[in-house]
């Protein structure tokens, strides 16, 4: 019995290990290859990126790309290229920051206020309105694309970051997540504060917000990740390449600039990855919250 158990345990760990390697592999390749020289990158990936060589030949096996995890020589040339030699990367990184941060801050404030109303205040049409919020949350971006585009044009927002920031701030996801969280706060706290003579604003600022801190953190992280990674919106709203965020830059450098692609990719994922490692427990909390039914 005990031996059986141990064998099973080892089997399970093996399965998990294999999965873990698969999950982490693309990440590992990107990070380690960012320390390779341009020549080494070319040696490894030319069969894929250099389409002149790309006719497959039955007799030669070395016409394939290969993944190499450990660089022959560690060089920082890619980082030098990305950060110092070419300024485009920094500009687009800055664009990503300029788009993402207002969305995270704006949505946090707007959603915290609204979530409180949905979770703890009574008003007519509450359930119906919340249902609308959920339905809209589930819609693909393309559903409201045309009217949004025309409206951005009318408001003169096209080709400006605001055409993405405004819809981002008012995305209903944050409201949904925080409502779930705030519903768990017992009403007795609010009653007690009211007996002590606190008004609604004080109750909100001194009780609800402090007690929802980890829920708010979870929401902010999920919103940050989602918007840092966005592709569809800038593709449509920002025709001007100088205003586009990094997500679009990376999809374009693939051909040609092998000497910096991996370093650019690594730098691009660094903020999200650091954020994730630092605040993993909030992220987990956020995912779990999204699963609780309202």
């Amino acid at each position, binding site marked *: 019995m005990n031996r059986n158990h141990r064998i099973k345990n080892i089997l*399970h*760990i093996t*399965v*998990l290990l294999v*999965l*873990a390697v698969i999950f*982490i*592999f*693309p*990440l590992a390749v*990107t990070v380690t290859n960012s320390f390779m020289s341009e020549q080494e990158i070319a040696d490894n*990936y030319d*069969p*894929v990126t250099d389409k002149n060589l*790309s006719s497959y030949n039955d007799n030669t096996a070395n*016409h*394939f*790309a290969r993944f190499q995890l450990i660089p022959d020589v560690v060089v920082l040339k890619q980082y030098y290229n990305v950060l110092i030699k070419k300024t485009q990367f920094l500009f687009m990184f800055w664009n990503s920051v300029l788009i993402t941060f207002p969305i995270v801050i704006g949505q946090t*404030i*707007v*959603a915290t*206020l*609204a979530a409180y*109303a949905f979770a703890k*205040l*009574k*008003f*007519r049409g509450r359930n119906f*309105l919340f249902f609308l*919020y959920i*339905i*809209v949350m*589930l819609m*693909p971006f*393309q*559903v*409201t694309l*045309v*009217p*949004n585009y*025309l409206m951005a044009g009318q408001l003169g927002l096209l080709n400006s970051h605001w055409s993405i920031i405004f*819809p981002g701030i008012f995305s209903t996801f944050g409201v949904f997540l925080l409502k779930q969280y705030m519903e*768990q706060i017992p*009403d007795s706290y*609010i009653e007690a504060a009211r007996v002590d003579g606190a008004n*609604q604003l004080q109750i909100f600022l001194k009780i609800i917000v402090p007690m929802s801190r980890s829920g708010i953190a979870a929401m902010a992280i999920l919103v940050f990740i989602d918007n840092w*990674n966005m*592709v*569809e919106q800038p593709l449509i709203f920002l025709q001007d390449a100088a205003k586009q965020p990094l*997500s679009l830059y*990376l*999809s374009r450098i693939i051909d040609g600039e092998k000497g910096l692609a991996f370093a650019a*990719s690594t730098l*691009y*994922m660094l903020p*999200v*990855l650091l954020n994730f490692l630092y605040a993993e427990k909030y992220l987990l909390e956020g*995912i779990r919250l*999204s*699963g609780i039914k309202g």
Partner: protein
Amino acid sequence: MRTGKLKTNNGCLAWLFLGPSLLGFSLFYLLPFVTGFYYSLVDSPINGTFVGLHNYGALLKNPSFLSALANTARFTLICVPLNMILSLGVALLLNQKIQGRNLFRTIMITPLVVPVASVVLVWQAFFDLNGVLNSLIHALGYPPVDWMKTSWSRMVVLVVYLWKNIGYSVILFLAGLQNIPAEYYEAARIDGASRRQEFFRITLIYLTPTTFFVFVISIINSFKVFRETYLISGEYPYNSIYMLQHYMNNMFMALDYQKLTSAAFIMAVFIVAVVLLLFIVERKITNMIN
């Protein structure tokens, strides 16, 4: 923990708290949603005349829309069940006392946070005709496959989808599993239930709410796979992975707003129908359990 409604009448106050969100929601989501529907019923967004369901009729005869619709449906039908089965499996593994459990969990959700654009290079190098996967196949003595430019491309998108989305579902399932009271299992064991019976009679039944939620999330994320497909193979990928979102994006570029809004609304109606159906079924099952 009682979380009933507060007694005082705070209707006005509620609207103050709700105000900013509601204003933006109406302006940037609700209004476009309604206008979008209107656009699908007229022949031009500007000074159009009402044409009823004509745009929808035209769309349902359009071959590239129909193929995009079929591809999206087929992809969703394959990837959603697969995602659910695999993530439930991983969650069950992680729900045991296993060494390095937290580390495994962390690794599983890493793909979720990594920007797609960052690892696109790796996927391309892996699935290209001259890519790493083909070098393995070649080494085994088989002819290489052009993964992205044959009907295999559907499988490539499936792999990328699973890689990206399993983590989220695993966390949801794990939370669901941990909510099942241990006494249920103890009672079943005393009654002499087998492992298999335990799984089907307790685990699966009590996991129903979570399962439904994972189902909804998986469907929604299956629509988001467009991002990956777009970054890997551009605006016009191989036929079998040309999705509704490609179609809508391309209609946008072609300024054919009628086709786009009609397609968007067919998709919207479908999503609302699925969600409503799920919530009804889920409520019935939950009531049965209680």
